[in-house]
């Protein structure tokens, strides 16, 4: 009886260890490539390697990145595309979220589902159809065409974040403001807006990060004048692997992590992602 109990307990511990090992392996699988790309960018030497205590660190690759006007141009293009895309996503997401929460838009689920559709369409298809359409209507070769394509992915997510933000604002506050003589605009501006400002910031950051890192649509739509940073990394990664590419990747990674850290501070990102 006693040994039975011990065996059972040991088995339970083993199972528990295996379970946590599984979790750890998946986390490692998800994160190791990122950490490698990041680490390599600090390696002193012309080849690829990880810096150790013996080799020390270097920022040379970052200097080379920022000294090369083509990389800087790519970074600037990425920045513009991200800003335009974020603006589109915020306007569309906020107006729709207001229509749903404050004005009881009929067919709310239909519109929400439709808007969500592009998220499930692979970037190659969106890139292809956006390219031929942009060429048709004369938008081809503009940063705006890339930004609009990115907004197709970013808007639904911005909408979800804003929707959850607005749902948490008690509507009675607005009614109170209205009963005190505030116009709908004033009630929105002075009562609702301050309360949803964190959600708006979070939505903006998510939209921006999506645009900053999206690459396939930029590949289809980009012309030599409108190359975003990821599009510039692409041929490098296919044909040669230089540490500058690691630096360029890390610039993207650092910008992303900073953005997410800010977003995580202002809202509970986990909750926002689950649409609550």
């Amino acid at each position, binding site marked *: 009886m006693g040994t039975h109990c011990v065996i059972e307990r040991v088995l339970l511990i083993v199972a528990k260890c295996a379970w946590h090992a599984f979790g750890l392996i998946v986390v490692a699988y998800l994160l190791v490539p990122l950490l490698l790309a990041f680490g390599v960018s600090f390696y002193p030497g012309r080849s690829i390697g990880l810096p150790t205590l013996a080799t020390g660190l270097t920022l040379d690759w970052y200097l080379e990145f920022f000294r090369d006007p083509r990389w800087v141009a790519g970074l600037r293009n990425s920045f513009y595309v991200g800003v335009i895309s974020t603006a589109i996503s915020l306007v569309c997401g906020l107006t729709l979220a207001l229509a749903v929460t404050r004005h009881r838009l009929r067919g709310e689920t239909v519109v929400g589902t439709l808007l969500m559709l592009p998220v499930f369409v692979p970037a190659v298809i969106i890139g292809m159809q956006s390219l031929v359409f942009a060429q048709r209507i004369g938008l081809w070769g503009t940063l705006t065409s890339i930004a609009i394509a990115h907004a197709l992915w970013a808007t639904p997510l911005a909408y979800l974040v804003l929707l959850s933000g607005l749902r948490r604002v008690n509507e009675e506050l607005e009614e109170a403001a209205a009963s005190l003589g505030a116009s709908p605009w004033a009630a929105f501006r002075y009562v609702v807006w301050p309360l949803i400002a964190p959600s708006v910031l979070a939505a903006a950051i998510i939209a921006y990060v999506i645009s900053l890192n999206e690459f396939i649509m930029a590949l289809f739509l980009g012309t030599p004048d409108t190359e975003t940073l990821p599009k510039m*990394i692409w041929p490098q990664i296919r044909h040669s692997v230089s540490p500058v590419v690691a630096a360029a990747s890390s610039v993207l990674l650092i910008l992303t992590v900073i953005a997410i850290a800010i977003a995580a501070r202002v809202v509970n990102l986990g909750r926002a992602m689950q649409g609550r």
Partner: protein
Amino acid sequence: MTDSLLTRFGRAVMATGRQPAFLLAVPSLVLFTVFFLAPLGWMLRLSTYESGGAGQSKFYEPGTFTLARFVEIAGDPFFLKLGLVTLQVGLIITAVTMAAALPFAIYVHRAHGIRKRLLLFAVVLPKLTNLLVLMYGVLLLLGDSGYINQILLALGVVKQPLPLFANLAALVYGEVLIVLPYPILMLVAAMESVDPSLEEAARSLGANPFRAYYEAVLKLIVPAIVTSTLVTLIWGLGAFIAPTVLGSPDYYTIAIQVYSETLENFNWPLGAALATVYVAFVALLVAVALMVQGRVARKWAHTA
């Protein structure tokens, strides 16, 4: 809830009078119809144009209509092989992804507090990172002089570097990394929406923990499992980056062919036709899956 019909009606009228809900929905609807539906329609139309003359001097020949591109795709063994490879790659990616996603979603769901948030962060981070950064990291890991080979060589396990990349396994390794966050997040969201007291009830009725979890959580999220598998399959069939960076030409997919016909051969109608075939196939797949799911759900509802 307790508002009388009259006040509700009055409020609705006032709302439409001041700021009609419809007007507020206009920007999103414009974005969706003008920049998603219209381009899709135009791409479908483009696939029926003649290709653009000798040397593809034009992207397409305006004012023509032909189904020649589709005949070409249906008749050419090259495209048949392309379709089969894409299907094979897509199914393998889906199987591997879901095999990891479901248990890991449970793992995240069972975690609490800061650990849960860190786990979610680890899931989201790759999704918000540039895919090229990810692929670059995988290259550093799997390449001939990559870390796995360096470690194996240093330990003396192998004499020659193993060919770890430019093959199907590397492709799957990379593409699963790209796709995995989607089903995990969808499954966790579904699990979180299940009432936790159900599981407690099952436990208190004497079910062991596994059984309770199965009956009171997993069975309830079957629709989410189906949907997330479907989404994974859609992405797997559309695989582009990992096959290009980590795969070999033997495993080039439709998505890669769309890219090269459009941007390397400048044969837009053929590129559009290939994309159309993909869209049609996926639409059919989704329709069938939803139909089957609906029927199964109804059957369950009858037996329950």
